[in-house]
Structure formats: C-alpha cells, structure tokens
C-alpha cells in the first residue's frame, strides 16, 4: 500500500514540474518538447547517479514518467559497458529498453491503422 502512495506522490510531482514548464513558458514548449526533455534529463541524471535513489524510494513514481525511460537507457548502457566494453556502449541502452520501444512502435502502428481519427 505504501509503495502505491509513494508512486502517486512522486509521479504526481514529476507531472507538476512538466505542467509548470508548459504553463509558464506558453507556446514555446509543446508536449513533444516535454517528452524529449524528460527522457534527456532522466538519462543525464541517471548518469550522474541521481536518478537511481529516486527510483529506490518512489518505484513506479520515477520509472513510469518518461525520465524513467531515459534512466533505463543509461543504466542498460552502463551495465553493458562493464560486461562488454565499447560494444556495450552502443548495445546496452536499446537492449534494456527493447520491450518498451517495440511495444510503442507496434501497438502504436496498429492503433493508428485500426482506429479512425476524431475531432
């Protein structure tokens, strides 16, 4: 029960930050920018060792926001580098995030083809 509450609290806080960025900068920042910004900053914070402690106490509150996807890419790369060296720097990130990336592309394609656009 406690893990759900922490995920709610921290995940919600991540979203407040995104909302403030969007509201206070107005049209300059689009949802696309938010997505790119979150994955980039998540990957950087992960490389600096700052993101893992947040994951440790917030669980899905830190892994479900897109910054968690950046964290996954970086951690996959670091693990693979320790095992395989230079080749791991190129293969580790995608290996760790493979399920999510493939799911997004395949389910995304199917949904875009099967459903009719609205509005």
């Amino acid at each position: 029960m406690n893990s759900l509450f922490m995920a709610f609290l921290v995940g919600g806080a991540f979203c407040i930050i995104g909302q403030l960025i969007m509201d206070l900068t107005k049209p300059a920042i689009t949802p696309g920018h938010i997505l790119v910004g979150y994955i980039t900053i998540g990957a950087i914070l992960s490389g600096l060792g700052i993101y893992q402690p947040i994951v440790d106490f917030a669980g899905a509150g830190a892994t479900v926001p897109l910054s968690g996807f950046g964290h996954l890419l970086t951690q996959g790369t670091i693990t693979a580098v320790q095992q395989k060296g230079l080749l791991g720097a190129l293969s580790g990130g995608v290996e760790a995030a493979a399920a999510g990336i493939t799911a997004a592309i395949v389910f995304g394609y199917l949904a875009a083809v099967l459903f009719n656009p609205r509005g």
Partner: protein
Amino acid sequence: MDSASEQLKQAEIDEYDQLVKKIEPKPPVVKNCIWAFVVGGLICAFGQLLINFLMSNGLNQSDAGSGTSVILIFLATLFTGLGLYDELGKYAGAGSIVPITGFANAIVASAMEFRREGYIFGVGARIFSVAGPTLVFGFTVAVLVGLLKIIFTS
C-alpha cells in the same frame, strides 16, 4: 499632419496591445497543476500496482518494470484510438504527457492523422515524428554516458 496621424495610430496600437494583454486569459496554473498531479500520480500508482502484481507472480524487478511499461503503452494506444486519452488530456495536461502513456499517445496521435498518405510512408513514417526525436536524444545521452564510463574507469 502625416506624422501626427501616424503618432495617433501608434498610440492606438499601444493601447490595443495593453488591452489585449489585460484581457488575454492566463492559464489557470494552480488548477492545471492539481489536475496534472492527480492524474499523473494515479497513472504512476497504477504502474506500481502492476509492478507489485508481476513481481508477486515471480518476475524479477527489471522484467516486472518492462512488463509494466508494455501494459501501460498498450492501454494508452488503445485509449488513444478510442479517443478517450485526448479527452483526459484536456484536463490532465502534463499529467497525461509526462508518464510513458503520454509517449504512446503522442506516437498514435501523430501517426493517425496521416493515413491519407498511406500506411507505409504515411502512418509508418509519422509514428516517428514524436518517437524519433525522443529516441535520438535518449540514445545519444546514454551512449555518451557509456563512453564517459569507459574513459573514467580505465
């Protein structure tokens, strides 16, 4: 005479600009933030529920995380297709963008509009109008971190 009328015109424009600034609706920041917090928080809590469930069924932490992402992405593409996710997004703002469900939503929404350009170079290409930049920057940073790790540990 000419310059006087021009000055008058300029004064009117300035006055108009000030009026526009005064009347222009400011985004209800506090209300938006509460919506973003509640909806984003609930999506993450649901993600935690899935992780707990998958781990209690014997998956290790990393597989449970991947499985959770896959389920959330599937649900987001489904609800985007049904038109429900964008309805939620009108209220939730960043609460529906920041979670990984927002990534899936952006992929479907941008691809869907381009069906008239065909299923291969319409939908197939536009899938990446949001996913592309996101993956480019994610991959690049991850590879840089990996290279730095090699340099500083050797």
